[in-house]
């Protein structure tokens, strides 16, 4: 018989329940409050009391209210129909809820129980299968959604029955498996999985090396992310974290995008709701929403569900990865999740760590990041979950606990700079401070020299070097004055400004400039590096600024033009003329 209990204490959304039987840590339970059931999770157990965090407001809750325990942890329901959905943090379908306001205890099914899916078997009777093996597939939007042996199954099975091609509902039995003891296990198209446990049905997890194109120049060229890689974007408010994440979700070269809007502004999610069904996905020719799933737990939704929302999103991403797909998971922002942990830890009167965050925060964060990755599946296919999270450091100070803990876990660091944002240099990623560890991976260097160009990594390092030198000379000029330094200093500084204005800065709101394919990025980087390696003839330092401004202006007009169009070529010609005006004929050797 299931364990039950009664409410004996209430402190905000922490409720103490006196229980009459066994309970487990992280078990889900429901409080029978008036006409509705409030979902909650056990977060501590002490003698005969369970401490539960309620995923709802506890207003009006009284002591003595009955509580039922379910015997399982928080689970995601996995099956066809997840794509294009808008879920709350607990995977309830937001579109199925009634009314304008969220009502307590309005829990909706994440999938469509009555919908028919056209199932095609991939396995046949007699096949030896194990957990994660593909039994069949249905077409979901444009993805071949694999129906797999449930992840909770252990050991080897034999397929004793599988249905023929045809229409089935998600709860219909589509196969029967026999285990080593001869017991039969019916399998449907859906399965449940506890969200806090990683799905590990793959063969192995090699170091990721395949370049993942995002169309954002400062990322692709300077701090690249890879399939199955991890990155994080810390930045003070107003530096463009969310615009950057939206650009990634629109443009990144992935089969599926999972967006976890965790404790952030509701209007930002609304922007995705409004735009994604309209925007075209160039890869598939379909709408962007058809490859996107949104987990929305905005800042005004229950705090306890924030933590659940990132885990739900990760579980969904891992589920699709097991089908051999390339998933990009974006979470905005992981700081809000950490704050939710802090609020609960505080209510339970635990001893606080730095800034009152719980002591195990770094462990929780690195555990979560480690669930991303590129995997070899047992059937020889590959899949990946690439994870990029934003961090909202308190006071813009990168020395705070969440940023520090994340820095240890993530391989790419995208530092958003307040200075760049203030001078409207967007995206405000500081290309010198930021890094991508993948640039050092021999596997990566090998991959891009084949896929992009043999001297790609060298070019990046050269451009980066120019930025560093530009920054140093700028400081010199500021200290010594415009006429206190050699003219070459102005030239070095302005060459780095060309890279800044033409490559690093990108207009996310311009139709053409918003996304730059990698071949165009390569072309423009070569172009800019040629200017960088050209020596110019200046009589006086006052000539340098207007001359380079002209160059920057023409290059920017090129960025705004269709690649290799008439207009593009016209500006390119204009650029040649400007360069020839002042260029010293021989080109500096590297």
């Amino acid at each position: 018989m299931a364990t039950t209990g009664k409410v004996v204490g209430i402190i905000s959304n922490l409720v103490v329940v006196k229980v009459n039987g066994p309970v487990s840590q992280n078990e889900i339970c429901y409080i029978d409050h008036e006409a509705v059931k409030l979902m909650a999770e056990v977060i501590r157990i002490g003698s005969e009391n369970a401490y539960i965090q309620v995923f709802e407001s506890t207003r009006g809750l009284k002591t003595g209210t009955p509580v039922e325990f379910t015997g399982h942890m928080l689970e995601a329901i996995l099956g066809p129909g997840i794509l294009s959905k808008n879920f709350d943090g607990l995977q309830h379908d937001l579109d199925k809820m009634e009314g304008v306001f969220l009502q307590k205890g309005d829990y909706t099914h994440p999938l469509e129980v009555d919908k028919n899916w056209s199932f095609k078997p991939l396995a046949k009777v007699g096949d030896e299968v194990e957990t994660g093996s593909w039994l069949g597939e249905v077409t979901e939007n444009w993805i071949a959604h694999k129906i797999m042996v449930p992840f909770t199954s252990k050991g080897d099975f034999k397929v004793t029955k599988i249905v023929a091609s045809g229409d089935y509902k998600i709860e219909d039995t589509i196969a029967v498996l026999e285990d080593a003891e001869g017991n039969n296990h019916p399998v449907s198209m859906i399965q449940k999985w506890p969200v806090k446990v990683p799905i590990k049905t793959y063969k192995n997890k090699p170091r990721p090396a395949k370049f993942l194109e995002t169309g954002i120049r400062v990322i692709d060229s300077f701090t690249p992310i890879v399939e199955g890689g991890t990155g994080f974007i810390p930045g003070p408010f107003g530096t463009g974290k969310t615009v950057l994440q939206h650009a990634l979700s629109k443009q990144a070269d992935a089969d599926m995008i999972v967006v976890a809007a965790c404790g952030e502004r509701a209007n930002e999610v609304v922007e995705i709701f409004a735009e994604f069904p309209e925007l075209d996905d160039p890869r598939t020719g379909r709408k962007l929403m058809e490859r996107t799933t949104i987990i929305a737990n905005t800042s005004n939704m229950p705090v306890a569900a924030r933590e659940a929302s990132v885990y739900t999103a990760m579980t969904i991403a891992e589920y699709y990865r097991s089908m051999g797909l390339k998933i990009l998971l974006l979470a905005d922002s992981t700081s809000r999740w950490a704050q939710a942990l802090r609020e609960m830890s505080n209510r339970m009167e635990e001893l606080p760590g730095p800034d009152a965050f719980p002591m195990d925060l770094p462990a929780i964060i690195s555990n979560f990041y480690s669930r991303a990755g590129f995997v070899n599946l047992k059937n020889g296919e590959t899949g990946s979950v690439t994870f990029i999270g934003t961090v909202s450091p308190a006071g813009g100070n990168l020395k705070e606990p969440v940023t520090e803990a994340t820095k240890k876990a993530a391989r790419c660091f995208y530092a958003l700079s307040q200075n760049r944002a203030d001078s409207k240099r967007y995206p405000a990623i500081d290309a010198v401070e930021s890094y991508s560890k993948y640039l050092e991976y021999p596997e990566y260097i090998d991959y891009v020299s084949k896929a992009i160009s043999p001297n790609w990594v060298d070019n990046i390092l050269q451009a980066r070097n120019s930025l560093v030198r530009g920054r140093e000379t700028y400081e010199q000029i500021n200290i010594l004055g415009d006429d206190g330094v050699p003219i070459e200093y102005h030239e070095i500084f302005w060459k780095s400004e060309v890279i800044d204005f033409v490559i690093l800065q990108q207009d996310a709101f311009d139709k053409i400039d918003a996304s730059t394919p990698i071949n165009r990025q390569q072309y423009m980087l070569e172009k800019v590096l040629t200017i960088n390696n050209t020596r110019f003839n200046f009589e006086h330092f006052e000539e340098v600024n207007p001359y380079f401004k002209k160059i920057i202006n023409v290059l920017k007009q090129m960025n705004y033009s269709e690649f290799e169009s008439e207009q593009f070529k016209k500006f390119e010609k204009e650029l040649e003329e400007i360069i020839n005006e002042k260029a010293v004929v021989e080109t500096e050797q590297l």
Partner: protein
Amino acid sequence: METTAFQKIHTKIDQITKATCSLHATGVGNEEMALVNDRLAQVVKIEGDLVTLQVFSGTEGIPTNAEVVFLGHAPQLAVSDELAGRFFNAYGQPIDGGPEVDGKLIEIGGPSVNPVRRKQPSELIATGIAGIDLNNTLVTGQKIPFFADPDQPYNQVMAMVALRAKADKIILGGMGITNDDYLFFKNLFENAGAIDRIISFVNTTENPPVERLLVPDMALSAAEYFAVEKNQNVLVLLTDMTLYADALSIVSNRMDQIPSKDSMPGSLYSDLAKLYEKAVQFPDGGSITIIAVTTLSGGDITHAIPDNTGYITEGQLFLRKETDIGKVIIDPFRSLSRLKQLVIGKKTREDHPQVMNAAIRLYADAANAKTKIENGFDLTDYDKRTMSFAKDYANELLAIDINIEIDTMIDTAWRLFDKYFSPAETGIKAELVEKYGKQIV
């Protein structure tokens, strides 16, 4: 809020602290209201049959045998059209000498809007102030605070914005404002002939600080009534949110909670977000827009209150005294309206975004030139031109005493560009220069 017959009266209080008292009682709901010797209080903690009440006006003089009556509901407000033109205290009781409001009782601080039911904000709010309309355009359903030092005229600017915006209702939530400021708002609203579309909930410095905690919820619940039931566009003014947050920290301190940054409660972000996220564009046409004030201490925006606010709100407006022209301006560098992208160049002329950015960039160059002077360096010709531009720009566009149409603002910027710069120096797309720049000058 009177006691009625058959309500159980408790007369034995166990513990009393500065802000709370605890007693044994059963059948009490979380967040339920109560009266302690006729003072309003709210349930904040239940441990077995020990119930802890937060007494809003403080516990001075409360005896252990005080009469405690539980009211059986969370804080409420009576809503109807009669609210219009009235002034209330933090409990929703009239303070203007008028009668009680007759209407439907609703619980304040109600549920959140389902994000999939929200509409994307798309209606521009024109204020006539170029620092706002040109550089930081406001949109209905937006939430945005003024970040200002206490000596700046933020309440005046906010009131001006409110009166110029074409809102159906303006709801003022005053928290810890001085009596002088309260009377300023009262006179201004009455003299503007707008009193019938204004509702005020006011907690002045004369009232107990903890009472403030009810003010924003009162104002926003009234706003929800008009926006949802009457499909009206409602503008909510909240001043000063820093004093609201201070009240939160007082309560959390007295509840023995571990403080996080700047002695603020760990839940500050969620507490503020719950209020600000009430700003919304409803599907049926109603909307709630929030303009708030967060006072800073010495311009420090890394303090927990402005910092958390910045992460929640859709931008912020900075006031700064521009010494060159001796006027208060809307600082174009630190101000930001996140929702402006939804309207500029769409509801306004297509050259708006580029003109706006170019002007700000040139203004930034002028700031660099100023640093050069301070460091004792010579100015280039370009530096000198940017400085003259900056002065005109501040005078004709950034100052808060401007009141012109948006098209005029854009034209003014083109005129200044032409006066001081070549098209290449402005960096504006060539086709826009052709189409607009050359027509205007």
